[in-house]
């Protein structure tokens, strides 16, 4: 298939996954912010302040940003490329380019998501705050991926779409983990933020079923990193990207991104069996760096063809 189309699909997946992750994260912070978390004396970690760090520290340098400014910028601001609205707009733009490749129903799902957001009946409802918008994005995202698995041929195109979605999901979970649960420096036993984080990613019940330990920072970080049975964990995302690329690649044994992903997957399994939570922060950093390299490798191997020509 065309390298350009493959890249568009990859980024369509990434943008949609980012819009959903952002919505979950923002909703989590918004709701957690309404109530105090007195158990955690070491200052709020899953807060508006840390949100800017999660997004790569863009708002740094000008002092502490006000919470409603951050919320506004990251939710509604069309000129801010990281905002939920902008992610959805980019996804829709990308979907237009690959409209012939994806199924009609998928296209309509994205298009109506965008239109309903643009027409504003979801933006800034006075009473319920931005929650209605987050809910909308979450629901529509689920609809889109559901339609993808029902209506799209499982070919190269869907593999790139899927790979984009999963690599983004893994990256976002790592961002949240690194900022919200900086382990290794004595997190309190009643860490309300671990619960808030799990609630934000929608994994609280999965955690409670899978892990007998209470939701403290350490076990939660291990769960979100290593638990392959939980679909939104980093390990599951790595495996999913790996699997998707294998179906897309004609010669997977020579593929740099696939080799890197396989190494990363084995590495995660190895680190999982290691005792102690002290190195989790280091693990997060290294895994995120690797994911960045994978992203570069993917662009090089699959999307670089156009540039070379």
């Amino acid at each position, binding site marked *: 298939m065309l390298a350009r189309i493959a*890249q568009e699909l990859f980024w369509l997946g990434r943008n949609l996954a980012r819009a959903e992750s952002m919505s979950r994260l923002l909703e989590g912070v918004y709701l957690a912010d309404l109530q105090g978390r007195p158990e955690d004396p070491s200052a709020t970690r899953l807060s508006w302040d840390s949100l800017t760090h999660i997004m790569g520290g863009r708002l740094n340098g000008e002092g502490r940003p006000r919470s409603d400014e951050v919320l506004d910028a990251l939710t509604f601001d069309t000129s801010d490329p990281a905002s939920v609205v902008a992610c959805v707009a980019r996804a829709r733009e990308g979907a237009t380019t690959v409209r012939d490749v994806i199924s009609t129903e998928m296209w309509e799902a994205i298009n109506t998501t965008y239109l309903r957001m643009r027409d504003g009946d979801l933006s800034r409802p006075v009473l319920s705050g931005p929650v209605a918008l987050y809910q909308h994005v979450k629901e529509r995202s689920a609809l889109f991926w559901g339609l993808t698995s029902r209506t799209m041929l499982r070919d190269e195109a869907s593999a790139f779409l899927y790979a984009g979605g999963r690599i983004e999901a893994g990256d976002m979970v790592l961002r949240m983990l690194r900022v919200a649960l900086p382990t290794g420096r004595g997190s309190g036993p009643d860490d309300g933020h671990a619960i808030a984080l799990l609630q934000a990613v929608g994994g609280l019940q999965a955690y409670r079923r899978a892990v007998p330990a209470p939701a403290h920072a350490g076990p939660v970080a291990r769960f979100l990193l290593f638990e392959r049975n939980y679909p939104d964990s980093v390990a599951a995302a790595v495996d999913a990207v790996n699997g998707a690329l294998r179906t897309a690649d004609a010669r997977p044994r020579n593929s740099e991104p696939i080799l890197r992903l396989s190494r990363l997957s084995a590495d995660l399994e190895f680190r999982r069996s290691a005792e102690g939570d002290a190195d989790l922060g280091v693990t997060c950093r290294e895994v995120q760096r690797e994911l960045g390299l994978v992203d570069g490798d993917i662009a090089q191997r699959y999307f670089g063809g156009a540039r070379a020509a």
Partner: protein
Amino acid sequence: MSDVEIARSQDVYCPARGFYDELFDGDGTARPHAAALAAALAALGPEQLAAAGRRRDTIFVEQGITFDTAGDDGPTLERPFPLDLVPRILPATEWTHIKRGVAQRIRALNRFVDDVYHAREIVRAGIVPWRLVVSRSHFARAAHGIRPPGGVYCHVAGCDLVRDYDGSWKVLEDNVRVPSGISYVLENRVAMTRLVPGLFTDYHVRPVDHYPQLLLAALRAVAPAAEGEATVVVWTPGPLNSAYFEHAFLARQMGVELVEASDLVVRDDVVYMRTTHGLQRVHAVYRRLDDDFIDPLEFRPDSALGVPGLMRAYRAGTVALANAVGTGVADDKAIYHWVPEMIRFYLGEEPLLENVKTYLMSDPEAMEAALRRMDELVFKPTGESGGKGVFIGPATDPIELAGLADVIRRSPEKWIAQELVSLSTVPTADEHGNLAPRHVDLRPFAVYGETISIVPGGLSRVALIEGSMIVNSSRGGGSKDTWVLENGEDHSDSAVPTRPESLPPTLPDLRYGAWTGQVQQQQQ
């Protein structure tokens, strides 16, 4: 300041005379801790509030947060759980007092249960008459001599508190069998943050969502198993039970199995549950049914809800039951009368929370005195809960009262009389969003594992009918979200935490698809 003017204006809200209003003082001025809320409510206006109320009903029906009420003429109706959108606010100092008082009471009740089934010291000391104890309907002979791990009997407890006309807190009832309502506390908070987030703006409200973790930790702590290996289950009588929503809620929130009697089996004094992998050992059971039904071999032989042999396993110490068998004797309304004495006897402390003045009908003098002024008192059967069989003197027909007097004379030990309490009021929104005073009570929930933990706030039940003091949801009552505020006066300061000393790691910038850049490259 315009906020204060709004809060003062009489046409917004007018407290009822003769009662303590928790948000406004006598002349209609908002109390200091409620000023911001009053302003926020005024800013919302009745229309917005009514609109939020309609959305709440839709959401609750969709999420299945409902309860069944029997209609007057037959069929049961499924109604959305009535949550009032105006919260009740408890300042930190007030909450600290309540928390200590409730914890003290539960410690004493727990000691009492232990005492009753073992040494009976309080009986020997001549404080509580043994005849009264053994005649209680929930006294469990089968529990004699059994001491559960850690000596904890009342793992889950709730006290019903009311606030009298002078603002003082009093205990109306103790619930140490299967107090219910905690699921509504958690769901109410979730609903409030989604429906009216604007009300939270100027407050720092202590969260309640850690309750399932507290409960799970407490159950694990008392389970006879190695650390981290205890299997805990929630035992429900079944989906037809009126509190089934809560049973499922707690099981889901704790991540444990929700079992019915047919899932449990006892082999050689050990409790197992039937799973797809065969029998699996169960170490702790949070049971949501009364003693009478748990084991047909020891209690009611006709109970189809029970597990035969459970009591033998319990006696052998291979399984922990929460609450322990026999706790019902402590929340009997005749025993309630002695709780202040228990606190002095077992703990050597003065009770922090008072009882409502109570007269035991088993005392002939007290009975005659009470029967002379039946139209002023409240009469309650001792072994019931949930407002069943209660007669409120001033609101009851004299002919009915005369009939009641006969009943009481025939079996005086089954009745108590209490002074009427003037329940405090909190502004409550009607269907059009207008505020009016309605009476409330408060049920804080305590979990007793290694220590006693109490979730900030609790269930505030509110009588939705004007002037009514009956708050039970089965009889037209609703509920309110209960906010316990953080310590410290300066909320704005605690709301904005100082930047942690070690900055979070700097993360790589977000990437964006860069196809356009490549196109330009090509064109060059």
